[in-house]
Each structure stands twice: as C-alpha cells, then as structure tokens.
C-alpha cells in the first residue's frame, strides 16, 4: 500500500462572482520513503497541491472533490482535531522563504518545543533535548545556544535548516517541501538540498519536492509530476522524464535549461504564458503555446496515455514519437 494516494483531487477558489478551478482532478501516489518531484511554471498549481495535501488551504480555496488517502485515512474527511494531530506529526511541511516562516517574536526553542509538546506528552526539558538532537542532525553549530535565539539573529540558510529540523522533529512519514531553496543564496541552495536528501534517505521519509528547477528534481527525486494549469500533464520516473520527455510542455521546459544552450546563444523559451485560471483555453490547456497543436487539441482535453511507465496527457504524443523515431533514423 502506498503512503499517500491522491485520487481526482479538485481544488476550487470561491471568487466573488464564480468559482475558479485551481486543481483539476489530479491523481498520484507516493510510496513509503519515495521522493516525488512536482514541477511546473508559477501558477501551475504546485503549491496548492502541497497545501491541499495538508488540508491547509486558506480561504477562498477549498477542496471540492477527490480523495487524499494518507496512511489509510482520508485527509479530506478529517475533522480539525484529527488534522492537527496529523500536521507536523505524520506529515510535515517546509515552506519557501525561511525569512518569513519563523515567528519573529518567539525564540527558536519556543517554536521547536511547542511543536513537540503539541503532539507528544513530554516535559519541557525532554522536548528541549529532542530539539537539540534534531538541530545537530541538520548541522547547526552549538544548538543549545540557538534555542534561546530569535530568528532574526540567524542567516537564511541557518533558518531553513532549523525549519527542516522542525519538520523532522516528530519523525514524520512524509515531508512536503515547497520550493525550499528559491529564497536562498545559490551557494546555500545545494547544501540545503543535499541535507534534505540525506535526511530523507537515512530516515526513510517520503518527500514531495515542489520546485520549478528541473536540475534539482533530477538530483533529488525518483519520480516526477509535471503540472500545467492545474493538471498533471506528464508523470513517471524522473530519469525518463528528464532524458526523454514526451509532452511538448515538458520538452519545452527541458530545452529551456541553460545546459541545453551553447554559450552566447539565446535561451530557448516556451512562447507565451501560462493561462490564468479564470481564462483556461478549451481543449488542451497548453494548446495556444504548443507548436504541434491540432484542431483536436483545441477542442478536447487529452486523456492520459501510457508509454511504458510514463503517463502523458497529449493528443499528439503518438505522432511526436514517430517524428522522433524518423529523425533518429535520419541521423
């Protein structure tokens, strides 16, 4: 049985006049200890997916339908108390910007100890000892002193390590990391990712890594979902998706990587922008930006088709494959 199993999850936002669909029937699984990457441009619905898994969408967002089975329980149907018991305990989250994630007026110790005491019957001193151990695990020097410090006394990289330590405090089964390094210095990004990978591997913790960085995904994860306008358009093993992307959008993302371009050349970009949620085009949402789009793409939403272990939602994927084959034959 998988650790997390999401089926037909639909998230909507109740706007003043109408409701907008932010996530459109997405389904995926995470096995125990598995690391899954969710990639896509801004506005694809990656972060919303993360918050929906925690059932932590803030108004006007809400889960409209679907199922989120986590360790055999449906997160969607949980009451507040059950949700509180799950959050931070069995499923933890790492936020994007460490500079604003920690409460500025509470010490690091207060923020760690309260988390432990919310879930376990511990004395303050016991909780403090666990906090020190966890800080040591994320390589925070002299953790005893850090506990009495306030967030503003620490650097961004240090704070993100502390947030990771908080996420790991109660040995959760799953960690959702929502762009954990975008707000950090490039030199620190790699350290943080390496740390996260190490901790997930050694503790057998499942990870959902939300990012727009394909490089990070290829290093960190075993499987990848590619999202576009609230849908999963391609999913499968990370290596296959990076090496042999099927969906034109995924291909565009990979071609846009600087490594794919010679020095001095312009970076290849996908023309146009992600449609806004209020104005998603009929048919395949990617069709206005897709060079292979046909009339069928403009009228019907593509079904998911299987290619080995890869699932792709594209009408033209057959034709693209035969094109590829022909080009390879020519070469």
């Amino acid at each position, binding site marked *: 049985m998988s650790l997390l199993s999401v089926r037909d999850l639909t998230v909507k936002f109740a706007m003043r006049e109408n409701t907008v669909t932010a996530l459109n029937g997405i389904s995926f699984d995470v096995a125990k200890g598995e690391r899954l990457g969710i990639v896509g441009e801004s506005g694809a619905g990656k972060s919303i997916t993360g918050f929906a898994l925690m059932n932590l969408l803030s108004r006007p967002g809400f889960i409209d339908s679907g199922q989120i089975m986590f360790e055999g329980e449906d997160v969607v149907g949980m009451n507040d108390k059950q949700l509180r018991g799950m*959050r*931070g305990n069995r499923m933890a989250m790492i936020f994007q910007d460490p500079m*604003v994630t920690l409460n500025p*007026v509470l010490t690091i110790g207060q923020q760690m100890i309260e988390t432990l005491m919310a879930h376990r019957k511990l004395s303050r001193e016991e909780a403090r000892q666990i906090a020190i151990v966890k800080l040591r695990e994320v390589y925070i020097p002299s953790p005893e002193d850090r506990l009495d410090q306030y967030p*503003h006394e620490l650097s961004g990289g240090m704070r993100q390590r502390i947030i990771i330590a908080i996420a790991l405090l109660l040995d959760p089964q799953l960690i959702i990391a929502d762009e954990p390094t975008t707000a950090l210095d490039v030199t620190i990004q790699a350290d943080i990712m390496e740390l996260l990978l190490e901790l997930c591997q050694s503790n057998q913790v499942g990870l959902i890594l939300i990012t727009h960085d394909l490089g990070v995904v290829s290093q960190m994860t075993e499987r990848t979902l590619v999202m576009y306008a609230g849908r999963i358009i391609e999913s499968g093993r990370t290596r296959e998706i990076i090496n042999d992307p099927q969906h034109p959008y995924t291909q565009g993302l990979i071609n846009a990587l600087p490594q794919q371009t010679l020095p001095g050349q312009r970076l290849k970009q996908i023309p146009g922008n992600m449609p806004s949620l209020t104005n998603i085009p009929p048919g395949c949402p990617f069709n206005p930006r897709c060079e292979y789009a046909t009339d069928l793409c403009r009228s019907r939403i593509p079904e998911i088709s299987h290619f080995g272990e890869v699932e792709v939602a594209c009408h033209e994927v057959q034709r693209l494959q035969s094109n590829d084959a022909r080009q390879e034959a020519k070469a």
Partner: protein
Amino acid sequence: MFAYLVKRVFQAIAVMFVISLIGFAIQGNLGDPLRELVGQSVSEETRQQLRDELGLNDSFMTQYLRFAGNALQGDLGTSYFFKEPALDVILKKLPATLELVMGATLIIVGLSVPLGVYTAIKPDTILSRLIMGLSIVGISIPVFLTAIMMIFVFSVHYGWFPSFGRGDVVHVWGYWETNFLTADGWMHIILPSFALASIMLPLFIRLIRSEMMEVLQSEYVKFAKAKGINPRRIYFLHALKNTLLPVITVGGVQIGTMVAYTILTETVFQWPGMGFMFLEAVNRVDTPLIVAYLIVVGFIFVVTNTIVDLIYGLVNPTVNIARMGA
C-alpha cells in the same frame, strides 16, 4: 541599555525645548498681560515703567531664556486669576485628570484586545459586524456629544450614575486624591471614563483587528498551523504578540492625546481636572496658566512616548536595547 536610555532622554529634552519655545511664543501673542494686571486708570507712563520692570521690553531671546531658566526651576509663572504659581495650580488638578485617563486606558486596553481579536478571527459573525458598525458610530460622534448623551441616558433617564464631579475622594501620599478607593468615587469615574474612551476604543478595536488579520495571513502563522499547533495558541501567542507591537507604539501616542481630550470630557462632567481648568483659564485669559498647561501636557506626552519606546524595545526582540546606541 544605558546608552539607549541616554539617547532617548536627550531626544525628549530636545522636544521639550521646542514645546517650551512654542508655548512661550504663544504667551506674547495672547493680548497684553498688563491689561490683566492693572486697571484702566493707570497712566501710560506707569505702564511703560511696569513693562520695563517686568522685562516685557527685553528682546524675545532674553525673555525666552529667562522663562526657560525659571521653568527649569519649576517656575512656570504665576496665574493671574489664582494668584498662585501656575505649576501648583496645575499639579493640584493633575491627579483628577490622570485618574480619568487611567480609567479610560483601562477600558480601552481591557476591551479593545478581546474585541479586536474576536472580530479578526471571526469577521463574518453578526456580533463582529455589530462591533464594527458600532465602532464606526463611536469614532464619528464627537466626545462632548457622547458625554452629553451618556448623561442623558444613564444619569437622567435611568439614574444609575451621577452626572458630574468626582464624588468621594480619598487622599493618598499626601496630596494625591483618588477615586479608586470609594464606591462613590468609582460611580463617578465610570461615565467620564467611557466618554473619554469613546473615540480611542473603536480606533483601537479597528487597529488591532486589521493588524491581527494581516498577521493571520502571514507565513509564520501558516507554518504554525502546519506544525499542528492549537488554534488558541496560534491566535493568542503567535499572532497577538506580533499584532501588539505596532499597537503599542500607536497606543503611547494616543494616551498623550487623551490627556488633551480630557478638556471636553471634563467640561461636560464638571470634572475638576486640568482640562476643565484649562478651559476656564482660556475664558479668563489667564496666559501664564495656559502656557503652563501646554508645557505640562507636552511634558506628559514626551514622558509617555519615551516610556512606550522603551517598552517596545523590551517586547520586540528585533530591537535590541542593550546594543542600541552603543
């Protein structure tokens, strides 16, 4: 800590200097003091002589320095009407005013925090809408009108509270008279305190509400939720502590402003404080008393602001008083 304190005190002194300058400048423009001192029958020659003796013909600077020098020694001039040192007159009225401000502050602090937090957490309930609606009414109606309406309803119509004066007061520490030690004193101070609070209270409810709503949207509150923390702890520790930081700053300024607002409240309730005294002094063109009042109120303002800044530094960990100014 010490360096910051010294710096803050120097700032306060600079502000007091400006206030005294303004106060003194007003003095020269509020009519001819001689007319108040002597009658119609005194000849122009004697007037000139008196003017010389009183130093009224000296340059502005000389006069100011003399005034400031005296003020530093606690001499703010002599009231024309009471024929007593102006400062003594004011200090005698000060306890009444400060107790009124204290009463209003208690009401504001005691009610604005729970009401502000409630309306921020549950903005859509009928009670929240009612509180917000009433707060607009409270802000919009001037203090003197609120005070008169309160007298009409609670004193005249229901007869629950007395309509004027301080009632029974008890002397403590020699000269301080307090309302808070007798039942009659309490009855007398309730209406004026609410009247005085009637503008600041809604303002604070709205301020706390909007700050709190903003804080509740913050990432650290979301993170606290993601940690599985009890909502009560999130509201009253995580959010409220951040909410109150800006409120403290505004609050300090407002307490000073309230001392000035007492003029209206005290007049309506015939409260024997320095606001009531000030209005009488204006009617009597008692210039030294007016100027002394301005300077004392300015002083109270500066002192409360300085204290509030120090408190802010203690509450907000990102302001490190120990290292500031060093």
